[in-house]
């Protein structure tokens, strides 16, 4: 009998790709519930449509690539992409929007680059950006949070929401769209932050940073903490991203003047901040590899988010910031290689195998 040559440390782990992905799916639940509670059934419908499309695309492509279909479907990576995209899209978006975004994410952003583990860009964010630059109107109309509906009108129920999203119904049902917290700051002309907070019910009825948005972000924060506790990822990237974003927004808060870009609390608890910090930036494939690299990567994502939110032409910036940093991740990796045991200096990834000096 041949003996296996194993060297220490003998670490046992039950974390294979499928388990990790299932944990990630589980961790999105609090955020998804908060979004549903405040913005209606639209989010869940998005997630369901996106999941069906993603699994269909994944199976088709795997079949075309002559790979075992069920083996790759079972790792749930396509489902995670679909769920993240579904959560990021505006609730009550038309069905074709979700279809186009998800199929673009799976087919072009993931499989044309070689499938799971080879994609240089986060598939969900590629899908989101394609939709954002192609259909700016549909992508920027968010429904109003339910507590802010006018007196006497009800938020659309499950049946009405389905009628709005799916194509077979021609009856048009109106939903109330409203500016998101980041929108109001982008279009603020001449109001002090305090006046804005008092005049806009989006803030005056909220505890910290906009009705609905704060709870959705806290939900994703809770999910992220759960994943941290289960050691699905390390704290480096999300924490440095949040710290960088908070520092930038504190620096440019400008004492709440009329040209302020919003307080750190607003930036941390609105838009896609927490979803991005714990579910997108932590993507093991497209982010930096070493802990030091992850901190740089996360911090730069945070800075870019603030720059694009404040001075860019789109209201939220998560997707753009992440894609730009995905470009930079290999470079960061090249300069943050950890020192291997037994070597004095870390070795460059570009170093030739022959010139070993130390």
């Amino acid at each position, binding site marked *: 009998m041949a003996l296996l040559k194993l060297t220490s440390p003998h670490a046992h782990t039950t974390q294979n790709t499928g388990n990790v992905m299932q944990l990630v799916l589980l961790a999105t639940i609090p955020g998804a519930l908060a979004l549903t509670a405040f913005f209606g059934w639209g989010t869940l419908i998005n997630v369901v449509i996106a999941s069906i499309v993603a699994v269909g695309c994944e199976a088709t492509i795997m079949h075309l690539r002559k790979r075992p279909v069920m083996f790759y479907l079972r790792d749930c990576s396509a489902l995670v992409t679909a769920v993240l995209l579904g959560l990021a899209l505006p609730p009550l978006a038309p069905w074709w929007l979700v279809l186009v975004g998800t199929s673009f994410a799976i087919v072009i952003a993931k499989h044309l680059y070689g499938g799971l583990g080879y994609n240089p860009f986060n598939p969900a964010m590629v899908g989101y950006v394609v939709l954002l630059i*192609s*259909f700016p109107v549909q992508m920027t109309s968010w429904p109003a949070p339910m507590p802010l509906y006018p007196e006497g009108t009800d938020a659309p129920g499950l049946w009405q929401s389905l009628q709005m999203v799916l194509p077979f119904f021609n009856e048009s049902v109106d939903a109330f769209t409203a500016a998101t917290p980041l929108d109001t700051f982008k279009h603020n002309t001449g109001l002090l932050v305090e006046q804005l907070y008092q005049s806009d019910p989006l803030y005056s009825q909220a505890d910290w940073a906009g009705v609905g948005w704060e709870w959705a972000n806290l939900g994703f924060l809770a999910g992220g903490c759960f994943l941290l506790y289960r050691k699905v990822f390390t704290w480096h990237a999300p924490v440095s991203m949040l710290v960088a974003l908070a520092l930038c927004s504190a620096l440019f808060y400008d004492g709440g003047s009329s040209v302020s870009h919003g307080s750190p609390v607003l930036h941390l608890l609105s838009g896609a901040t927490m979803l991005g910090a714990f579910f997108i930036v932590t993507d093991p494939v497209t982010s930096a590899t070493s802990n030091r690299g992850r901190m740089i990567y996360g911090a730069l994502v945070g800075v870019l988010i603030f720059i694009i939110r404040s001075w860019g032409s789109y209201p939220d910036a998560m997707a753009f910031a992440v894609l730009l940093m995905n470009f930079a991740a290999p470079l960061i990796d090249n300069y943050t290689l950890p020192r291997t045991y037994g070597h004095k200096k870390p070795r460059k990834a570009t170093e030739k195998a022959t010139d070993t000096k130390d």
Partner: protein
Amino acid sequence: MADITYREITKNGLWSNNAALVQLLGLCPLLAVTGSVVNALGLGLATMLVLTGSNIAVSLIRKRISDAVKIPAFVMIIATFTTCTELLMKAFTYELYLILGIFIPLIVTNCTILGRAEAFACKNKVGASALDGLMMGIGFGLVLLVIGTIREILGSGTLFDNMHLLFGPMAENWTIHFFGEGYGFLVAVLPPGAFLVAGMLIALKNIIDDRIERHRAAKRAPVIKGAKRVRTTGTVS
């Protein structure tokens, strides 16, 4: 190179050495102006004209010109033809000229043209060079046209929109609408769409080449095992 047949020149230009799909030259106009069929056709025709003209001119002077001043002379010739084309477009299709804008003068820098002058026209007779320029131009133009068609259908849901810019008033109502008014898929109109469509076309060409090659291999007479080996021992069973 002198013994290349006209048939081969045609095949090279249109398919096996296609400027856009195989040599990947002239990608800048290819990606920039193929948002609609009329733009693609206009630029394709202009490029074809310049390419044919410059190939003929370069071939005519190929024995008189020393290696040292070869490239500047080629560039002068190409620039002359480009200016001619530009003036022609200004005279006859002024609106299209305005739409294509900087990409008409930029034909000078199209690597396909200098590439053909350097690689073919300065080594071959006038007739062959003219045909090579024409075929390379048609091959490039066809790719432009296909990309333009796909991007126009996907991006704005129309086909042959604004064709009157090129064909005059008789083409006013050639526009075909596919998805009704108000349709728009911006990604196909923006530069990323051009990259995606061009990439898909290159992939498609490789698939077709692969199929043809496999088909040929299957048709070739199968090699019989042992037929070419000289046996020195044993018996042939």
